[in-house]
Structure formats: structure tokens, C-alpha cells
């Protein structure tokens, strides 16, 4: 049995400790907002927070998060999280939307460290999150809007 704290709820799961957190979230807990894009930490679609830090859940064995707090897009309710989601909506960032849970999780983690990131800091922090729809212009703008900087 593995004890997992996800979005504030503790669950006991009978799963292989090596299974990547991504698939545990998606297929055993039913939190499908976190997406599979590459499986090798190259695209960022699977980004979640572990104790507040952004982590690629596709490449994190579930055993590595025992005793830690996992937050997924479904559990994002910090003021920063809400501000980012609101900016995403106001600026109409999404297209296909598939990468966007990961983008938002990375953006929230960035703003938790840097209240007012510059363009270069945004690019550096978001560089691991691919968007094949290339919504990058609006991602940049939305992060600025969420951090109350002129867009």
C-alpha cells in the first residue's frame, strides 16, 4: 500500500512503487487534467507541484512522493493559482488546451518564486513546457498580467 497526499486528500493505493506519478494520478486516482505528452521529461504536459515545486510527473516514480504534497491542476486553489487561471482566461491563451495544465502549473511555480518575472525569466522558467499550438505569446502576456505587470 502506498499512501499519497494529492490535493490535500490522503489515499492508500495498491500500486507498483515504480509506476510514474503521472499514470497513478490519471488512471488510479482519476485526475486526468495532468497530461501525457512525451514520457521523458521533454514537454512539460505532465507538470504537477510536489511541495510547491514543479515536477514532471511522467518521470517521477510514485514512491518518490510518499510523505509529500502533490498538487495537480484540479487542486490549484492558491491565490497565485487563481490569478494565473484568471489571466489565462482573460487573455484567451488556450488553443487545443492539451499542454495548458502543465503550462499553468509551471507558471504558478514561477510566480511563487518570482513575483514579477522579466521576459527572460519567463522564457527560462517556461522553456520546458512545449506548446505545439505555439500559444507562447499569450503565455508570456498572461504571466505578466497575473503578476500585475503591464502586458
Amino acid at each position, binding site marked *: 500500500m502506498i499512501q499519497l497526499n494529492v490535493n490535500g486528500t490522503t489515499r492508500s493505493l495498491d500500486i*507498483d512503487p515504480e*509506476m*510514474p506519478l503521472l*499514470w497513478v494520478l*490519471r*488512471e*488510479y486516482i*482519476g*485526475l*486526468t*487534467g*495532468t*497530461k*501525457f*505528452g*512525451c*514520457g*521523458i521529461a*521533454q*514537454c512539460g*504536459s505532465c507538470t504537477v507541484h510536489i511541495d510547491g515545486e514543479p515536477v514532471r510527473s511522467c518521470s517521477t516514480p510514485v514512491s518518490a512522493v510518499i510523505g509529500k504534497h502533490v498538487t*495537480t*491542476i*484540479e487542486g490549484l486553489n492558491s491565490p497565485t493559482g487563481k490569478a494565473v*487561471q484568471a489571466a*489565462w*482566461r482573460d487573455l*484567451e491563451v*488556450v*488553443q*487545443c*488546451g*492539451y*499542454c*495548458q*495544465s502543465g503550462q*499553468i502549473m509551471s507558471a504558478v511555480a514561477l510566480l511563487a518564486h518570482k513575483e514579477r518575472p522579466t521576459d527572460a525569466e*519567463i*522564457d*527560462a522558467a*517556461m*522553456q520546458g*513546457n*512545449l*506548446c*505545439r*499550438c*505555439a*500559444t*507562447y*505569446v*499569450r*503565455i*508570456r502576456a498572461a504571466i505578466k498580467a497575473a503578476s500585475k505587470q503591464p502586458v
Partner: protein
Amino acid sequence: MKTDRIVNLSRRRFLTESVAAAAGLTLGVLPIAGAGMRESGPGLAGSVPAEAGDFQPNAFLRIGRDNSITVISKHLEMGQGTYTGMATLVAEELDADWEQVRVEGAPADAARYRNLFWGEAQGTGGSTAIANSWTQMRKAGAAARQMLVEAAAERWQVKPAEIDVKAGVVSHAASGKKARFGELADAAAEQPVPQDVLLKDQDEFRLIGKRMPRKDSPEKIDGSAKFTIDVRLPNMVTAVVAHPPRFGAKVRSFDAAGAKAMPGVKHVVQIPAGVAVVAGDYWSAKRGRDALQVEWDESNAFSMSSKQILEQYRALAKGPGTVGRNQGDTAGALAKAAKVMEAEYSVPYLAHAPMEPMDCVVRIDASGCEIWNGEQMNTGDQHAVAGVLGIKPEQVRINMLYAGGSFGRRANPKADYVLEAVHIAKALKSGVPVKMIWSREDDMRAGFYRPLYLHRLRAGLNDDNQPTAWQQRIVGQSIMAGTAFESMMIKEGVDQTSVEGAANLPYTLDNIQIDLHSPRLQVPVQWWRSVGSTHTAFAVECFVDELAEAAGKDPVAFRRSYLKGHPRHLGVLNLAVEKAGWSEPMGPGRGRGVAVHESFNSYVAQVAEVTVRRGVIYVERVVIAVDCGIPINPDVIEAQMQGGMGYGLAATLASELTFKDGRVEQSNFHDYLSLRIDQMPEVEVYIVPSTEPPTGVGEPATPVIAPAVANAVYAATGQRLRQLPLRVV
């Protein structure tokens, strides 16, 4: 063109069968066969028999007693904003309250939901969604509005002409009476269906032309949007497929013992595409596949390398191909020319690589087969699945979910990945739902690519260095050959999608010849966002720059002088260069390039500003002008210009799929490079005001960026780069 018949579905079915909230008014518009048909993008005319005279209703709209308005989209939402667009067209004429409108994907049913540009088939592609629905959806909304008005007039005993409708409220000023749509829905359903509706003039639009918020945003921001990969059904199993290492290889034998020994693995079954490993979850299935031993028969497998292919194409380009356009006497003009310029352009194979890898959920039961999919080729897939299962197409029920991108990939003419999932479900025989998921490696290596192309261009110049003749020879695999579209899209031996963007060269020259070689290779190929224009725009717009230079003219002035009679090309060109500040000087190592191109009846010009430093191309600013007819939603248009350009920029700077001895060399995003945020330039988008019917915006920005950047690199460095992805030497 408009002879549509509008049918009230409410009385036929929905009033009796639906639950109270959903009951009310449901309307459809029946297009008469042939109305509005034209050839554009993939068509399915050959594969689906038309049943003349047998028309069932197209249901596009449902008004509930709870005031909810559901627009049923016949087109797939894959990021391009279709759901919002469909809703806007209906809501505009309905005078609905935008907040009340929601959108639902239509079931697969060509009789009701066909793409009016695709003959009798339902599907999404070729940037046709808005263009083919423009009149149809507005009529659906207008007819419903009229029935609501009639119902109110009857109830209030007033004249219909005295009734006003605004933002979901029907009102009569003189009596002060008001009703919301929901209160009138049942009564409206009893009204006769208007056969002729008056549509608004452009200056009466309240939603069209406004930045209406996207309908799919909220659920894509909170993680609740459902993609195929998110479907969960009772007893569902997950499958992964071991595909052959090279195209054309077949399973000789396999040993399932290792796979079956992995925890969670339930079945190992052979299917035509390879061997499927089925487990309770994806990770277990994938581990099972890693442990599976397959011996492949590679005796007939593809064995070429990209270099060899290019060499072969170069040799082919020496001899004449099948002529796709012939105007004047190109050979004669070249022979007489004072000078002949010649250049070779080439582009590699490309994967579509949408963020959501190919996936599909299938359940086979006694009544047929049910599919959950980001469904882009509804009718084609229905027929293909029916063929495999030996059932009728209408027994294949398809749930159209959001697609996590596609860029053409999910509209596979052979229904490839859908059939893989169907074959697995069929082999299991148990009726359990199967979710097949491709890994990213499968997505890169299991095929269907934008073909590699080589262009050989020759231009004759007169004594003043002005062009007198244009000859363009294109070599590359035909996308349409061997598909259901062959008869429609291959004309006199020329695949129209191989030459589009070149055969319709807009520059006014007396002598133009375009010819084509379509070698057959085992590499499976498919349309990729903007199809033929992905390569023709690059070759044409770069070579035009070369001609401008030869003529001693500025690239913009040169284009202008040869685009007379093409006002829409000129319109976007002039707008883009004006906004970009075309003639402002740039510093050393920097350059500005321009390109203009029409695809899918939309016109796009782009000006790119680049800096080249230590061999790296930095694209810093891109100014885009677009003419797509009446703009439906400027915000969505702007987003498609940004994103479409960005998708093309990835292929301009980085993406390349190569073969070595028949094997694909790339496997995932670490070696198949995509555009990342730090490579995304600043983008400005300007929309040309228009009164023309709207045309597509999903694709037309994509092909323009490669030539704009290549021309900018030339301006910055003096290097003409004629191969994608661009590499400064």
C-alpha cells in the same frame, strides 16, 4: 446557392424523448445536395455514396426550458476555435445571450453533419469549418429566432413585427411583455418552420466581428476538458502497440511470454499493424511491450536514407514531369532569355507531433461499435471501421471529443490509428472497452508525415534583368495517391495538393510552367497544416526574392509590380510592410524579410525581423497581415495567426524527420525539435477589413514564415538558405 430547407426536429423526437430541461426547440437546416459544394481541402466524394433525395435533418441547435442554448458543432475542436466560431454564427442570428450558449460535438452522421465543401462526408480540415458553415449556421439561428418570435406573438396577441429579440430576451415594447427563450421554447417548437429567413447585414452584427470569449477556455484551464486520453469506462483496458521498426516490415513471429509475465498485462494479440499488449493501465502495457519479443520480417521493408531520397529526387528533377500548369511558351522564353537563373529548394519529412499522441477508445457490442476520439474524419473513419467489423457505417457511433492538436494528423485517409484500436478490441472478443495510446515514440515513428520535397526553379531574365519565364519542377510523394480522394484530387496525373501554392502563382508573368514528379516510396505521407503550401510557399517566395535582387529591386516593390490584378495579395502585403516599418534601417547582423501567400482562400503576408549571431537565427519580431473575409472572431484569428506562424516557425528553424537505412532517426521531443517559448518572436497581427464571405484561419499563417525568415536571413547575412530547417553556415 441557398436552397436550404429548415426542419423542426423538436416535434419529431426531442419533445417526447428528452428530459424536461433539454426539451424545447431543436432546429436543423437541410442543405440541398450540391448547394455550396466546391473543391477545397480533402474531399471524400469517392468513398461515400450519395443518396440523392434522402436527406435527414441537420440538428444544430437546442434551446432548453432552462434557457440553455446548445449549439451542436459538426466540426472538431482541435484548438482552432471552431466551437466558438460555430456558436457565434448561430447565436448571432438567434440574438442569444452569449453566456447561455454551450457547444457540443456532433455525432458522426454525414446526412446531418456533412461538411458542405466535402461532398457527402463529415469532417474537419482544409480550413473549411467556418467557410462551409457560414450560411448554414446563421440560418439555423435565424429560423429559431423567427419561431420564438412567432410563439411570443401568438401568446401575447401582438404582431410579430413589433417584437424585438436581444441577448436571449424576447420583448414587446408597447405592452411591456418580456420572455426568455426558455419560457417560449415549447411554444416555439409548435410554430411552422420558416422556409426563408432573412439574415442580418454585416452592420447589424452584434457578435460576429467581436472578441467573444472562447467556449472551450474554462474547462481547458481547470483541467476538466475531456480528450480521448481522458476517457474512463467501466472495465476499460489500455493497449499499446509494438510497431514494425521500418515501414513495410511484417511480424514473422513473436514470443509473448516476457510481456505476459509483467504485472498487469492481460493480453498480447497480433493485429495487422503489429502486436498489441493490453493491460489494466498504460504503464503496465508499456512495460509489457518492452518485454515483448517480436521477430520482424523486413525483407520488403523500406531501406532508404534521407540523403539517398534527396539524391534520387535531384536526378528526377533533371527530366520533365507531368505538367500542372502551362502558360505561354516557357521553354521558348527560357531559350531566348538573356540570362537564366536556377535554384533548388528542399524540405524534409515532418511529423505532425500534436501534443496529444494518437489515441482512440473503442467498445464493440452487439449493436455495433462505439468510438471515442478527437474525431476529424468522421465519415471516412465510420466507413473504415464498418469495413473491418463487417457492420453498417451507421452502426459505428463516434463520440467527437476535443483533440489535443492534430495539424492534419487525426484526419488520416486510411483511418490508421483508429483501425489499430478497432483491431485490438476485435481481437479481444470480450466487448471490454479498449483505450489505445501511442507513446510519443510511436507517434514519431509509426508514420504519416509531411513528405520530403525538392523544387527546381528556373527563371528567364531579359536584358533589363526582368523575369520573362518561370519554370518550377516539384518532386515528392503524392499525398492523395492510394486514398479515397485520388479520383477527386489527382487531375491528369497531378496531385493538386503537391502543386497548390505554385500552380496558382499569382505573379503576372507571360510564361509559367509547373511540373511534377510523384515518386512512390513506402513512407506513409499525409497532409500537414497547410498541405502543399508548406513547401511551395517556401520555394516560390524565396525564389521571388532572388528575382527581385537580380532585377535590382526592393523585394516589396518587386512583388507589388508583379501582383497587379491581385488586390487581396497586395492588401495584406501593403498592410504588413507598413506596420513593420519595412524601410527603416536595421543594424549589422540583422535583417528583414517578407513573404505573401494565399492558401485556403485566405491571404497572409508576414514580415520577419531576425538577428543572426554565431550561426544562430533569432527571429525577434513577426508582423502578420491577414485577409480572411469577414472576420468572425478577431481574437481567434489573431491566435491562429500567432500559433499557425509558430507551428511553421518550428519547421523553419528546427524540426526535421530523417531516415537512415529505412529507420526514422528521431523518436521524441529531444531529437525531433519543436519551437520553445524562448524562440517565439513578438508577433503583431493585423486583419484586413472585408465584406467577402469568411475563409479559414487555421492553416494560412503556417507556410508564410519559412520564406519570410529565409529572406530575412539573406538580408542579414547575404546567405541564401534553400533548405529547411534553415542552417546558417
